[in-house]
């Protein structure tokens, strides 16, 4: 069953046109260039929806988060990964929250005291868990499948499809703000127009500088630069033997098409609008003739560790890129790096409170200390999502609608974790398990819901009716179904894809 929604024919024509013309420099450039600071779609009046992919690298186990099991519910409480009843709260609707206190995270001398309930109480109305059984326990393969639905639709990624649907005419419809994971995998459908594919921004704080060819460079005079470009393009290039020989080279055509859009890119003043950094010794903006984004202070307040914590910087930039009309989808993720501040710490001298930002190998630190790692990393995901939601809610899109009204935060993860533990062990190491679920947040979803359920005796999740959402114990949800459900919810045209419709997910 496919989504019955159709895109206006004019829009399809434009897309088809862009596909066909993607090799043509002018059309390619036109498709790459930002027309203004707002979403600009001259020929498609359907307003965009936005997708933020917040990758939970390493295996975020839903039974250590919104589907936690109480000990009294399980016949095998001593060996299944379940929590003491007092530490599991039903925070909102079907959604549960874990409280976990530990003096250290495995061998890392860092005390944690985490309660997920406050997040779920505040944001759970827009939160949904979709149980799933995936197909790989290899990190890279599984991450990729979490965004392609196990190559459900010609190997296209969710981000590419959202960019394809809503991103034509934008400067950078599909931005990858994280590196080092396969949540930013490139899809395998080469027939998509170039603008649909993701582009990596490795350093969200310095990247805005590259949205302008000269501002911030000592001695640069913009009039002179404009004259130089004209001289280069109109005279020197034409006189060049290199051009005579290689003008037909595909890479050179693309390059020139990108360059043709430079001035419009610059006119959008993204070097200011995306400048998250604050004036200071590390970023002497005034000396360079630059200034921070007008909303930067508010964004920094939500992500106060943005200079030290890559995930916060990514999230802050994702917000700016979406609300400044640059992107319709942004991918961010917790890295596998150990991020901490202060002294390294030791058994005698623990790491300072709040000093650890990211665990080594992220959720996969569960191999060493399952519960502490899951608690710490879930809290990290929730906190990041919460800050993003707050910012998006506070920013008007149009007509009284906020950006959040049109957005989804999808938290893909590699896989689940093994469900058993040594008898009565309060913490333990876990392995990889295909059985798990995905968390997502959006006002467009039926919030406060768990689609499917969990068998408390085994810790294994089970599926649901795609039509009604009713739990079905004999069923498991596939990556393809989750993929289709997300696209349906975001209004992406899936006609002809063969993807299942999942009305149970969307409002």
């Amino acid at each position, binding site marked *: 069953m496919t989504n019955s929604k159709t895109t206006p024919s004019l829009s399809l024509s434009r897309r088809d046109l862009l596909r066909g013309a993607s090799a043509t420099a002018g059309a390619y450039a036109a498709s*790459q260039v930002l027309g203004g600071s707002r979403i600009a779609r001259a020929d498609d009046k359907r307003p965009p929806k936005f997708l933020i992919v917040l990758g939970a690298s390493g295996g975020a186990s839903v039974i250590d988060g919104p589907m936690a099991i109480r000990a009294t519910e399980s016949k095998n409480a001593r060996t299944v990964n379940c929590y003491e009843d007092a530490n599991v709260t039903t925070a909102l609707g079907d959604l549960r929250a874990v409280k976990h206190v530990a003096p250290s995270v495995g061998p890392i001398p860092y005390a944690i005291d985490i309660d997920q309930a406050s997040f779920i109480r505040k944001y759970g109305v827009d939160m949904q868990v979709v149980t799933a059984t995936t197909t790989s326990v290899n990190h890279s393969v599984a991450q990729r499948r979490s965004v392609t639905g196990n190559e459900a639709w010609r190997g296209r990624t969710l981000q590419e499809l959202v960019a394809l649907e809503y991103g034509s005419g934008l*400067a*950078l419809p599909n931005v990858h703000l994280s*590196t*080092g994971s396969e949540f930013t995998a490139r899809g395998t459908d080469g027939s998509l127009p*170039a603008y649909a594919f993701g*582009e*990596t*921004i*490795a*350093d969200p704080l*310095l*990247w805005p*500088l*590259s*949205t*302008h*060819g*000269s501002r*911030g*460079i*000592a*001695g*640069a*005079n913009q009039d*002179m*630069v404009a*004259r*130089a*470009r*004209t*001289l*280069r393009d109109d*005279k*020197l*290039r034409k*006189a*060049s*033997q*290199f*051009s*005579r*020989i*290689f003008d037909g*080279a595909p*890479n*050179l055509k*693309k*390059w020139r098409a*990108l*360059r043709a*859009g*430079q001035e419009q*890119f610059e006119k959008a003043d993204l070097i200011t609008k995306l400048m998250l950094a604050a004036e200071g010794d590390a970023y*002497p903006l005034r*000396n*360079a003739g630059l200034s921070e984004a007008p909303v930067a202070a508010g964004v920094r307040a939500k992500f106060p560790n943005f200079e030290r914590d890559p995930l916060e910087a990514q999230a802050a930039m994702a917000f700016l890129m979406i609300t400044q009309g640059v992107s319709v989808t942004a991918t961010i993720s917790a*890295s*596998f*790096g150990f991020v901490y501040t202060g002294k390294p710490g030791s058994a005698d001298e623990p790491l300072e409170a709040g000093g650890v930002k990211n665990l080594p190998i992220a959720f996969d630190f569960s191999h060493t200390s399952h519960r502490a790692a899951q608690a710490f990393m879930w809290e990290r995901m929730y906190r990041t999502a919460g800050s993003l939601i707050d910012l998006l809610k506070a920013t008007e899109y149009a007509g009284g609608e906020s950006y959040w009204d049109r957005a989804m935060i999808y938290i893909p993860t590699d896989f689940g974790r093994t469900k058993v533990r040594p008898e009565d062990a309060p913490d333990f190491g876990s392995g990889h398990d295909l059985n798990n679920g995905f968390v997502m947040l959006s006002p467009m979803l039926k919030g406060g819901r768990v689609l499917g359920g969990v068998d408390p005796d085994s810790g294994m999740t089970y599926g649901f009716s795609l039509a009604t959402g009713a739990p079905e114990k004999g069923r498991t949800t596939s990556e393809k179904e989750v993929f289709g459900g997300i696209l349906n919810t975001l209004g992406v045209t899936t006609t002809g894809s063969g993807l299942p419709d999942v009305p149970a997910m969307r409002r």
Partner: protein
Amino acid sequence: VSHKLLNTYAWSANLKSAGSAGAFLLATCSLAGCPDDKTGAIAPVPTATATPTGTPPPPPGPLQTPAAKNGRLKFKGGDRITADLASALALEPSAVCKEFGLYDCAGLAHKITLGGVEPYNLTVYQASTERGVSTANAVERLALSACHMRMEKDFADKGKAKLFGELVGAAPSEASLSAVASRLYLKLLGRAATTEEIQAWSVSTQMPKLRQRRTPPKTMQPTAVSPWRPRKRRSSTDPVERSLVQRLRKL
């Protein structure tokens, strides 16, 4: 043989004369290096009379190289562009471009944008095969910054000027502008400018048209500054010629 060699080399060098970083830098440096009242002396630009045999070589007419059938070009990447700029402009690589005066452009600030890898912190193990929307800007920032650095140095000490010496402390003249233009071509693109290019440049800088043709110098170092380079260089099939070309390149 010498003419053939010269043409072979010129062709090879001409392959590098892209209209990108080199040409942009050429254009910006040219325009930026045209102050009102600068004078100065600098080493003469190589001309036809400076050939080793004393025999003026024929003027470089339009080359007969056909358009590339496949046109397989590869982006040079930030590190090589920086190295080329540093070499051409006699700068330390670390002085070519620093954002905010702090962050090396090719090595840090725009490393991934310029096709770099960073395995240790970012776990970027493979360079992107596609250029991004901001790559052209990043290349221009490198070129502009390098140009500014060279100008600062040249105008601070006329005696040590490397590129703009004729313009330091004197009003620009046809001869001085021509000399600077020719030197820029030589340094940045690794070849002499053609008449057509000098004329194009002169019009844009309000320089009177030059009537005399420039000819390739006797030696040229391959310091082309372009973000693109051919993946494979065409080499001669003549073993003697090929050997001579290789020897000449080692000079």
